[in-house]
């Protein structure tokens, strides 16, 4: 019988272990809306009354993937940072209807989260919305809706794909341009000639071209890695890589997150995400907007940044291009990125 006691002791010991990151988390709340249970992990300085909601990329990513490195470390010192898993992604749950996977419905989820934060922390909290890549698609969909946008002091779009056709076509052009520049400079000529050749074989049309869109996206990430190897794009810090791996493998249940995210990504594209665009509604955005893009971003090119700068209705708007960054400038140039974001928030909080 003593063996059974030993076994029980081991189980109890295992349950009593807590990971270090749990100490830093302030709150985990779940927003339950339209059959989905959507978690939001809140870290940092809630006493500041300033909350930065981070919308992850994908579709198919997760909120805590963004918690790492110098950027979020600095943000959490000054503000509360809200990392949320979107509907059907990360550790969100629910028995959901595939037809509900649209940017508009997820924008309503984000609005529900904003209201829930006010409910919990008080009406006087000041909210800022931050969207990266697909999170920029979603955040833009939130901000073009005046009923939702009124909740926020500022909108920070980072390499946001708020216009899917422009994302694809702009990405092709950007890859071709950068490849041409690299060939002219004599850098890895055969590699960049290969990229040019691959780009030329992709049909530049949206309709019935899912494979072309997927190929462009994969090529863009590969080409950015090449630029990182060449030293044109700053490599992620070891600290960031450690944090990212820790969050992906030891904070989230990565198997659940992987399968959920991939499945949901497919549903979004079946629901017509390829043609989605809010460019013609950007004039509705009256909220101060900060647009942040990497010069070498071939996944969501700065064409979208310049377009958003022109189209957004707010007078208080600015675009910053990071000279040594690709698709994720908060990873490539975290110090400068953090400085610009903090300046923006401090001015408007």
């Amino acid at each position, binding site marked *: 019988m003593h*063996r*059974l006691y030993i*076994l*029980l002791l*081991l*189980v109890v010991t*295992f*349950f009593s272990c*807590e*990971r270090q990151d*749990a100490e830093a*988390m302030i*709150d*985990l*709340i*779940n*927003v*339950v*809306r339209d059959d989905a*249970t959507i*978690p939001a*992990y809140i870290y940092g300085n809630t006493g500041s009354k300033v909350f930065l909601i981070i919308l992850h990329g994908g579709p198919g990513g997760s909120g805590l993937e963004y918690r790492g490195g110098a950027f979020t470390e600095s943000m959490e010192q000054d503000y509360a940072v809200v990392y949320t898993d979107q*509907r*059907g*992604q990360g*550790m*969100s*749950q*629910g*028995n*959901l*209807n*595939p037809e*509900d*996977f649209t940017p508009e419905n997820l924008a309503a989820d984000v*609005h*529900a989260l904003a*209201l*829930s934060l006010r*409910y*919990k922390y008080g009406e006087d909290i000041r909210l800022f919305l931050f969207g990266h890549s697909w999170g920029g698609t979603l955040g833009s969909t939130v901000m073009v809706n005046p009923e939702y946008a009124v909740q926020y002091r500022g909108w920070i779009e980072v390499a946001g794909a708020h216009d899917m056709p422009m994302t694809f076509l702009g990405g092709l052009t950007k890859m071709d341009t950068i490849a041409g520049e690299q060939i002219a400079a004599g850098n890895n000529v055969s590699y960049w000639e290969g990229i040019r050749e691959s780009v030329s074989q992709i049909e530049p049309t949206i309709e019935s071209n899912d494979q072309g869109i997927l190929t462009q996206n994969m090529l863009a990430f590969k080409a950015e890695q090449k630029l990182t190897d060449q030293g044109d794009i700053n490599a992620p810090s070891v600290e960031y890589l450690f944090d990212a791996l820790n969050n992906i493998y*030891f*904070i*989230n*249940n*990565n*198997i*659940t997150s992987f*399968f*959920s995210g991939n*499945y*949901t990504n497919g*549903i979004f594209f079946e629901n017509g995400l390829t043609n989605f665009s809010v460019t013609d509604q950007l004039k509705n955005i009256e909220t101060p907007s900060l647009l942040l893009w990497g010069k070498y971003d071939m996944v969501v090119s700065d064409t979208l940044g310049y377009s958003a700068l022109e189209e957004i209705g707010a007078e208080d708007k600015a675009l910053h291009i990071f000279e040594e960054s690709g698709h994720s400038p908060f990873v490539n140039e975290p110090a400068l990125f953090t400085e610009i974001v903090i300046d923006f928030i401090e001015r408007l909080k």
Partner: protein
Amino acid sequence: MLGQKKSSLEYGIGYFGNTWINPGLEFSMEYPLINTRTGKSKYSDLGESMITLQGSAAAYWDPFSHVGLLNYYQLNFKQYFGKRLGIQMGFGFVLQSNVTGDNYVVDEDFQIEEQGFVRNNYGGIHISGGFFVDNKYNNRGVLNKMSLYVLAPHNAGILPVFSYHFIYLMK
């Protein structure tokens, strides 16, 4: 001393892990339904291979999102090799409830109601395979097995979940 006695109920308690970050506790019972082969002569009351019915209840803990409660029922094929070592393979179904706390339920008009707990229910199929080692008296043992269960409808689709079981057996 081969195999398991006919009509002997085997029960076990042990570790259930839905990946390494979701530790849990499992309780299971297993009953031999059919002995497909028995021991020779004086060991004829012992099954060397058999089909069993197993019922299990498990609870796991995800420190950052929810608690999962599972019930699964399955038919196993169980085969002894030598005196102590054996394999077990099974197929059945699973019911899972995930419970989350600190919930804000938001309705169509964006009115908020705070709720302590919300439960999401899923069903699915379950397959598993593993090996066990009994002690020389066949009255204690340990079972190691991996299982896959496929939950639906989860996030508008199915969700494959892998788990590891380490169970202390008593007969």
